[in-house]
């Protein structure tokens, strides 16, 4: 049967990408449907119970600046907050939080339930419905077809998900969950290429069986750094009673923080792993997918870094109302009995009870060079893809894409041009540009070093950097847009004032650059809100470096502005080297800036394209 009302946007999958996608679309006024195989696992943290960290923390703040939910949800359900790299400069400082896994999930589920324009429905999507090369809806396991103008696919690890514990194999995208087995065929049928990736997760253990004596404690920051820019964290604003006045899950951000604990592997652990390598799913050739280099299994660590005497492990609590702990750093695909011996070889874990084994999971992904920078498929119109299906890893990377895909699906449904965040504006821009321009061969994770202009990407400036996009598309409430706008003005005013206003010893800015802590600054400045003050001080202190990056960005913008006609047939362009022509034909860049970033494309190829585009424009307007 066909469901009686069609939707503007249908989102398939309710992980971190899916929830941001459906919220964004619904908040933009599109009638939106969220389909998930299990409503109880909305926004489940399948791996570690933490949000943020290097580059990811900045990205979560960017998500907040574009009206996403991840930041506020983390603040309200976080149980430990730490600012990473506090000893380094603001550009590379990143907030990170341990979350209460269940609270995180249930609060997001509740948020979706309360969201106007959004409908939730539990059904496994079995295939897509196409018409004239466009997607028009999806089929479900309940034999109900849903029709939509645009469809966003966020399958995570569920697309032909296959889990490995040693030689034991189970179909599913996550322990205890199902596998989306037929959707892959539906994508292939539409001409979308699929490949395999692999990821893994460590064992979960029972907290009361851990011997904490002798383990090093890692506490949260006394002055926690939060993710959301909005004022809901204000203690006088009862954040747990939002929107409808319903009672919400969550607590005062930063209250009653809990600790993580540090331990390490032993020579005995190394011996156990080495003796049993042949039983590991990854080392016995059972797994075809490529795993991430930055998140190696314990097998990889002992094999590739054999001279390293021990490997650090973190024990992370999974929530306030559970005794389950996550062993960060012990991802493996060894058989269960070996895992048990391995865990028992670790200080503090000698008597520990395993609640869930570690496992590796293989899944299908669609190489992301098949998409436009809007995250719409180039093969199928109106089909958007976000999250692990695009070859990424991480909740934050998924949420960022989900948000952009949701916004663009809504825009497409109403015939408006897409939101494209440039790589010089935000980590989200770097993420998407890397994916669609370079593709990926391992699960892609964001690092600050991937951004050419990361000094401009300090986490505190996210809502300033992305204000224009948020404002143009009305992704935030009017009152919040107004607050950001005046914050921008205040910062510009103070930047100028500190730089130009002469005191007896020269401008204030000079005093700041000499010694930020000793500089005596005007009382009116000190009365500004902390966030604005910090941004001004950052800009003044690092002026030379920031100016250099801004100049680089300006140069980049020139070529970014030159659009490449989508109908261009690269293979027929005289003078273009064959290798470049094939690459350009495969990636189909949107503008000359993107074209120049494709590996193997030379400046002379760009010159030829420039001449060709100019010629086409002149022929149009003689």
């Amino acid at each position, binding site marked *: 049967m066909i469901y009686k009302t069609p939707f503007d946007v249908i989102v398939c999958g309710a992980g971190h990408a899916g929830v941001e996608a459906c919220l964004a679309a619904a908040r933009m006024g599109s009638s939106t449907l969220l389909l998930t195989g299990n409503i109880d696992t909305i926004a489940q943290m399948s791996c*570690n119970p933490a949000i943020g*960290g*290097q*580059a990811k923390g900045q990205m979560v703040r960017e998500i907040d600046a574009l009206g996403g939910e991840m930041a506020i949800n983390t603040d309200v359900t976080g149980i430990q907050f730490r600012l*990473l*790299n506090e000893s*380094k*400069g603001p*550009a*590379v400082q990143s907030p990170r939080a341990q979350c209460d896994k269940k609270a995180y999930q249930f609060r997001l589920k509740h948020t979706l339930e309360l969201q106007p324009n959004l409908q939730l429905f539990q059904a496994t999507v079995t295939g897509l419905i196409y018409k004239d090369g466009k997607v028009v809806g999806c089929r479900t396991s309940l034999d109900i077809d849903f029709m939509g103008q645009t469809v966003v696919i966020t399958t995570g690890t569920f697309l032909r998900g296959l889990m490995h514990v040693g030689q034991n194999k189970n179909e599913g995208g996550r322990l205890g969950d199902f596998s989306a087995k037929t959707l892959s065929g539906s994508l292939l049928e539409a001409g979308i290429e699929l490949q395999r990736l692999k990821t893994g997760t460590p064992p979960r253990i029972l907290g009361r069986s851990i011997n904490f004596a002798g383990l090093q404690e890692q506490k949260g920051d006394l002055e926690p750094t939060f993710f959301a820019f909005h004022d809901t964290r204000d203690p006088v604003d009862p954040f747990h009673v939002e929107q409808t006045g319903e009672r919400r899950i969550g607590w005062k951000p930063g209250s009653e923080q809990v600790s993580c604990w540090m331990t*390490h592997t032993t020579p005995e652990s190394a011996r156990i792993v080495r003796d049993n390598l042949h039983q590991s799913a990854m080392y016995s050739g059972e797994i075809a997918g490529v795993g991430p*280099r*930055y*998140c*190696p299994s314990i097998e*990889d*660590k002992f094999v590739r*870094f054999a001279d*390293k005497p021990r*490997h*650090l*492990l973190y024990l992370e609590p999974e929530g306030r109302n559970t005794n389950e702990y996550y062993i*960060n*750093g012990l*991802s493996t695909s060894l058989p269960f009995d070996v895992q048990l011996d391995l865990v028992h070889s670790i200080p503090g874990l000698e008597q520990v009870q395993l609640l869930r084994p570690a496992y590796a999971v293989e899944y299908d992904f669609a190489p992301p060079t098949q998409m436009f920078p809007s995250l719409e498929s180039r093969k199928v119109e109106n089909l958007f893809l976000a999250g692990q299906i695009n070859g990424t890893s991480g909740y934050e990377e998924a949420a960022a894409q989900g948000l952009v895909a949701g916004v663009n699906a809504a825009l497409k449904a109403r015939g408006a041009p897409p939101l494209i965040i440039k790589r010089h504006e935000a980590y989200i821009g770097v993420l998407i540009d890397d994916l669609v321009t370079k593709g990926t061969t391992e699960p892609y994770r964001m*690092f*600050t*070093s*991937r951004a*050419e202009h*990361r*000094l401009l990407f300090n986490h505190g400036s996210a809502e300033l950097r992305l204000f224009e996009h948020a404002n143009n598309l009305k992704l935030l409430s009017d009152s919040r847009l107004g607050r950001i706008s005046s914050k921008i003005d205040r910062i510009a005013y103070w930047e100028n004032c500190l730089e130009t206003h002469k005191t007896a010893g020269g401008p204030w800015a000079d005093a700041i650059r000499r010694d930020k802590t000793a500089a005596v600054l005007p009382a009116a400045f000190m009365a500004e809100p902390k966030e604005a003050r910090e941004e001004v001080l950052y800009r003044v202190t*690092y002026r030379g*470096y920031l100016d*250099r*990056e801004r100049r680089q960005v300006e*140069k980049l913008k*020139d*070529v970014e*502005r*030159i659009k490449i006609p989508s109908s261009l047939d690269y293979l027929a*362009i*005289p*003078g*273009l*080297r064959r290798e470049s022509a094939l690459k350009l034909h495969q990636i189909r860049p949107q503008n000359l800036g993107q074209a120049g970033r494709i*590996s193997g494309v*030379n*400046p*002379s190829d760009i*010159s*030829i394209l*420039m*001449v*060709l*585009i*100019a*010629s086409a*424009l*002149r022929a149009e307007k003689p």
Partner: protein
Amino acid sequence: MSFSGDTIAALATPVGTSAIAVVRASGPQTADLVRAIFGTTPPPRLAQHAAYRDRNGALVDDVLFTFFAGPNSFTGEDTVEISCHGNPFIAQKILGDLFARGGRAAEAGEFSKRAFLNGRMDLSQTEAVMDLIHARSERALAAANLQLRGALGRQMESLISQLVNVLAKIEAYIDFPDEDLPLEGRQAVQDQIAQLLIGTSRLLATNQYGELLREGIKTVILGEPNAGKSSLLNRLVGRDRALVSPEPGTTRDYLEDRVVLGGHWLRLIDTAGLNQAASLLEKRGVDKTFEQAAGADLFLWVIDSTGPLPLLPPSLAARMTPRNTVAVFNKIDLPAAPRFDRLQAFPFVNISALQGVGLEALQAAVIKLAESFHVETGDELVAINARHAHALEQAKACLVTAGQKIASGESSELVASDLRVALDAFGQISGKIDNEKILDQLFAQFCIGK
């Protein structure tokens, strides 16, 4: 549509020695450049004679320059054409100066591209321009590949891998603060940056060697009158360049010619004989010999082996060493010749310029000395051009700043920012360097992964 508006410069005449070389610059800063170099912006399209002085005020050459005001120029932008003497070294020097003043090296076919984009060519020429860009870039690529396959490529590869290595180290501590990494060794990073600076400076020093290569090694042939200096010159260049006669003192001025020996370009200078009791005219010739000898890189001291070993004038003897002089005993074909086998001061050869005997030995001796002019760059020989020099200067400046930042305990993302600019500068020589390289190195070096 807007196209990037920086000012580009390049050699407009083929590389190599010709009578005149033309350097062309085009772009919005052209008028400012002309004013900065020549003091005025002359009326358009009128050739001006002027002295070209570089940024430091040193005279480079007497040149003719013509300023063209946009849009009435080949490219449609403000353009200047500077005609200098055809020595490639001078043209490179002018080009290098234009880069130092803010110009950028033009890409293949870029002048034509700009002409087209600015409407100075009509649509029917679209394909011609594209073909030209293609052809030029293929040629440039072939030339660059040749260079990069050689010593320069190896030097660059080593510099780049060192720099990627340092960056990977710094990035690891920025991107993985919670990892169990070995203690952050800022001292080690500082040492590595210092090493990189040495490597970069060495490569830059070959710019001077490049000059030597381009200008030729100045080799002065000197000796007593009638020792056979002019015969030797003729033998070496393979034609009758100098007038020879049995009459001593035939060469009264100096003569110059160029010859390639074992890959070295020698500027051979035949001088008047060092006659003690000379006529006034000869005396003037001898003075010129001293003048030439003062700036010589190499000496060929020609000695008549039938006579006694002559004495060297003290001012010359002071400059001549075993590292820059070959003693050439000539006329061994004459029957009365006693052999001088035991001269200790200089390497020597026995020849007969008249009959062409012993020339191979002479050439081998000269080549051996010429090689000592190579700048030490490991065991490789490299010559770099103005564009490379400019990129290396940029890299060097950033490495210096990075070194200072790390020494003064500044935050490492700032050090990384400088090092990245240096890496980009290296990339201007060797081709774009992907960010991914740093990550590859990082994951190879460190065990990352909680």
